[in-house]
């Protein structure tokens, strides 16, 4: 009971400043748009965006579902492929030397260039969107996880070996658990970009999704609806970030107790 209250108090302390600032900005926005009488096709007032939201609340969930599943599947794929690739790169130094520069170069190819190509190659269905999200999410996960695997405590590995651990046991018992925090750090970054990746891929061509919703609204000069989509995308990004955060908590219950953790703040 008091623990729940404590958590609530802490949440209020952590998130209240951001929420207050957001409310203040929206109020200023409303006042400025009204005072200067800005045309709604340039910058709509928050109240007008709210009205637009009520208009589209029937069609929006379908688009939201499409984008969410593309982002989720793409993120899951990048997590699986990223972790597997990191294991290979950490395992073989020559392979790491060969592949790492290519990975870095691949990161510098802009997504807006890749997305149309992927759509041309794989059609207009869900696959190209998932692939774009995967391509975006892959890099941070590989880099962070490889680093985590390579930084595992050497003495801990020696200790395991002294008790007869083989390569596989060292991997499972020491290396993988040591790399879990780094993996989640990478996943957190990828999750922040996953929704954006899906939307950009939909931009190129789609039959459903928030990206398509934005394109359609733009062609109809409904800037208010574009803003609705932007707000929904922001909310979705925050939700995916929070989901990964929660998953990390569940996967690493011990992190809660390491020095400087939440436990000591209470």
């Amino acid at each position: 009971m008091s623990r729940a209250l404590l958590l609530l108090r802490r949440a209020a302390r952590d998130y209240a400043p951001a929420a207050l600032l957001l409310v203040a900005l929206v109020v200023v926005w409303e006042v400025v748009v009204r005072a200067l009488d800005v045309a709604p096709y340039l910058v709509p007032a928050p109240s007008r965006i709210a009205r637009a939201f009520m208009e589209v609340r029937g069609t929006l969930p379908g688009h939201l579902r499409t984008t969410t599943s593309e982002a989720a599947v793409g993120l899951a794929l990048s997590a699986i492929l990223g972790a597997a690739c990191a294991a290979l790169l950490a395992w073989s130094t020559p392979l790491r030397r060969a592949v790492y520069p290519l990975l870095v170069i691949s990161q510098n190819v802009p997504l807006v260039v890749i997305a149309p190509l992927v759509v041309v190659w794989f059609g207009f269905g869900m696959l190209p969107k998932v692939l774009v999200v995967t391509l975006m999410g892959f890099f941070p996960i590989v880099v962070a996880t490889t680093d985590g695997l390579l930084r595992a405590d050497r003495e801990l590995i020696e200790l395991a070996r002294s008790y007869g651990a083989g390569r596989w046991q060292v991997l499972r018992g020491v290396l993988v658990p040591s790399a879990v925090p780094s993996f989640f750090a990478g996943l957190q970054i990828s999750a922040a970009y996953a929704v954006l990746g899906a939307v950009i891929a939909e931009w190129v061509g789609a039959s459903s999704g928030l990206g398509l919703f934005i394109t359609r609204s733009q062609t109809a000069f409904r800037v208010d609806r574009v803003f609705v989509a932007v707000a929904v995308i922001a909310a979705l990004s925050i939700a995916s970030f929070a989901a990964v955060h929660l998953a990390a908590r569940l996967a690493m219950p011990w992190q809660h107790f390491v020095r400087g953790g939440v436990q000591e703040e209470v």
Partner: protein
Amino acid sequence: MSSMPDGRAIEVRGLSLTYAGRPPVVALDGVDLVVAPGEFAVLLGPSGCGKSTLLRALAGLVRPTAGEALASSVAYMPQRDLLLPWRRVLGNATFAAELAGVPPAEARGRARALLGRFGLEGFERAWPAQLSGGMRQRLALLRTFLAPRDTLLLDEPFGALDAITRREMQGWLQGVLAEESRTVLLVTHDIEEALTLADTVYVMSPRPGRIVDRVEVSLTRPRDATTLTSPEFTALKAHLLRALEGPTRNR
């Protein structure tokens, strides 16, 4: 590291070990040392003299440059406690035993039975980060004890603890060993710790490490505060101090 002659748990002969590098570091230079089964041997020497290196050679983690380091099956406890932050107390206790091939259920059963003796009762589901320094060290010792090995190699197991906790732990370790007999080779740079625990003390010189003295300690057990202030203890302490100072200091 297999066929040991009868009557020896550890046998080190002419062991030299040089770490490659620029400049190469001669850590050990012709070390001889024999430990009998059931004996409590202590390796006493200043830091940097190669004590950890000797244990690591016995655990098979570094290869001697010359000579041999033979031991029957050993359980190695490194200088840092090296607990796994992602395993609870019970999981850490069974870590070494599991790797050594003890079935997990059996390892857990044995660990539970010993938790109380190691002062960890009620903490089996705690994370290492929640334990005090003394508890962490006892957990690392429990992990070492649970490995199915005859000989324990303990590298400064109480080195990180404050003086009061350290004395407590020394008394406690004597009690545990009285119940669960093992061969022990313990490393320390603390003379009183050596005399409290040892049947035999080997004194090492500063780097490169050599054995400069071997002292048998026949003080009655358990050795408590009374022992510590006895004339025999004081005499042995004076002897070890001189041995540690070495011949060069007298010039």
